[in-house]
């Protein structure tokens, strides 16, 4: 119910169509499956961009500008395990991209590299067409949501949510209190500010974790199987919540999951990965309008996309076996 405020917010018009330029760069060994009949048009809210002010009122539309460019990235661990081989991925402004694949396909490794939490062995990564070290100076912000809520058990919910502002040194500013309140309200945790994490259910801990990610008003949100440990009802609810927030805020999302249904339900694009060695094998565009609801989950289009993605996963695993044998 806390999200009703977000949806009904008249700052954001939910019905204004915006051109969508389709998935990113295609490299040689990777097939890109496009939906055959439907045109590449997508209903998506026009959202205020952080660039709007900087670039003299020019409104940025989704897909016009790369947020993350991963090119030729390999990750080899010290013990010789090749976690990732030749990964190319471009994520554009406003996209919701899922990385989907079996365990060991390097999807989490790729996400951590995108977060700057791990260095690539080879290849380059650019954020907003720049090096990681300069990203912070331009007011571009990343946020990361882990598979576990990863809260500080000794701190109350409010202090946990405030953490990124504390680390930035902006927590004392008057507008920060408002940001924290807003983040808590968005995830429906108002009234739980003084609770300790252990007093919350798994789903509520995840909400606190999302509120913490939101509080800095990030431009790029990275989520590593955030709802993998939750029951299906809670997971569906949180999926809807994340979609609403994504539409209301100026977010670009990269979402790691091993659930075909979750990936198709949430994303503009599903990037299918294979294991041993971890690599990107297919890039499936999910060309369906937002907001998506439970009706979408039972639609024939949804089933069609799920089949297509599942087949891509199957092909990927067969390729893996060929490599292994």
């Amino acid at each position, binding site marked *: 119910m806390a999200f009703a405020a977000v949806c009904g917010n008249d700052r954001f018009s939910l019905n204004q169509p915006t051109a969508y330029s389709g998935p990113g760069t295609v490299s040689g060994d990777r097939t890109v499956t496009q939906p055959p009949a439907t045109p590449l048009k997508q209903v998506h809210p026009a959202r205020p961009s952080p660039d709007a002010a900087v670039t003299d009122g020019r409104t940025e539309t989704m897909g016009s500008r790369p947020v993350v460019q991963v090119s030729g990235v390999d990750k080899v661990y010290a013990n010789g395990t090749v976690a990732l081989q030749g990964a190319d991925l471009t994520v554009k402004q406003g996209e919701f991209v899922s990385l989907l694949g079996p365990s060991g396909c390097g999807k989490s490794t790729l996400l*951590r590299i995108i*977060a*700057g*939490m791990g260095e690539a062995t080879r290849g380059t990564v650019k954020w907003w067409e720049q090096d990681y070290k300069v990203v*912070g100076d331009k007011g571009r912000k*990343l946020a*990361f949501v*882990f598979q*576990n809520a*990863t809260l*500080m*058990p*000794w*701190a109350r919910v409010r202090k946990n949510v405030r*953490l*990124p502002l*504390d*680390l*930035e040194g902006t927590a004392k500013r008057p507008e920060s209190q408002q940001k924290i309140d807003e983040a808590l309200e968005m995830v429906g945790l108002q009234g739980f500010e003084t609770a*300790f*994490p*252990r007093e919350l259910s798994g789903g509520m801990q995840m909400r606190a974790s999302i509120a913490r990610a939101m509080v*800095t008003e990030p431009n790029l949100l990275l989520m590593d199987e955030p709802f993998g440990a939750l029951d299906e009802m809670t997971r569906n609810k949180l999926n809807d919540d994340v979609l609403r927030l994504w539409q209301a805020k100026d977010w670009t999302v990269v979402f790691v999951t091993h659930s075909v249904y979750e990936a198709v339900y949430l994303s503009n694009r599903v990037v299918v990965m294979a294991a041993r060695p971890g690599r990107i094998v297919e890039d499936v565009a999910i060309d369906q309008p937002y907001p998506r609801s439970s009706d979408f989950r039972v639609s024939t289009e949804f089933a069609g996309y799920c089949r297509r993605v599942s087949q891509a996963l199957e092909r990927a695993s067969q390729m893996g076996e060929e490599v292994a044998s």
Partner: protein
Amino acid sequence: MKLPLISNERFVQIAAPIAVGLLFLVAWEVTVVAMEMPRYLLPGPSAIFQSLVNDWNTLFRGLLMTLKVTLMAFGIALVLGVAASLLFVQSKWIEVSLFPYAVLMQVTPIVAIAPLIIIWVDDTTWALTICAVIIAIFPIISNTTLGLRSVDPNLLSMFRMYRSSRWQELTRLRIPSALPYFFGGLRISSGLALIGAVVAEFVAGTGGARAGLAYLILQSGYNLQIPRMFAALALITLTGIALFALMVWLSDLALRNWHESALRVEH
């Protein structure tokens, strides 16, 4: 019929050990009386209690002396131990170079080096304190170092993603994570400080106005005042239990809101 007190878990936790203790004392007293045991071999609890009352002034002075050494040693071990841990986690190099010496200090028998320390340090109280520090410091160093390293790696990655400073990392992440380990170290260390104080005094054999409980035990042994010896021993034991209980209470106070060890399980 069900007794209400028996079903109260808290009551049972306190009453059961006390009941066992009383039974033991009664059996002891009965055995001593029945076998007509001479006092200089094995006094009964009543004789020990009587000695505790009669010699209270001497015993209390000894207790204060031992307690003073114990608490000073514990305080110094705490400060130095934590400082050493904080130093160790600054770099793997520092830890690798210095940790073996902390272990060396731990495995050296204190009775073997106490005479040296007593020769080197003029003031006996300080000599005893130094011996007790040497014994008490290791659990604090090893536990706190372990705790400062036992940080959730994802939280640490997140801190770094938000470009945290080393200071923020230490105060907001490492120190809170280390608290449960630190308090575990304190519990062990408080007992060891007392043992160190007593053992060092045995070696030093300081008498006169500065006599602690250990010296009273020695002296009572020579004079065959066995009840007084037991009374002094009882005071040492009670001091140890009180210190341990204090540490448990402090640890519970600091951790009860969030750490598993301090949570009350509800049935």
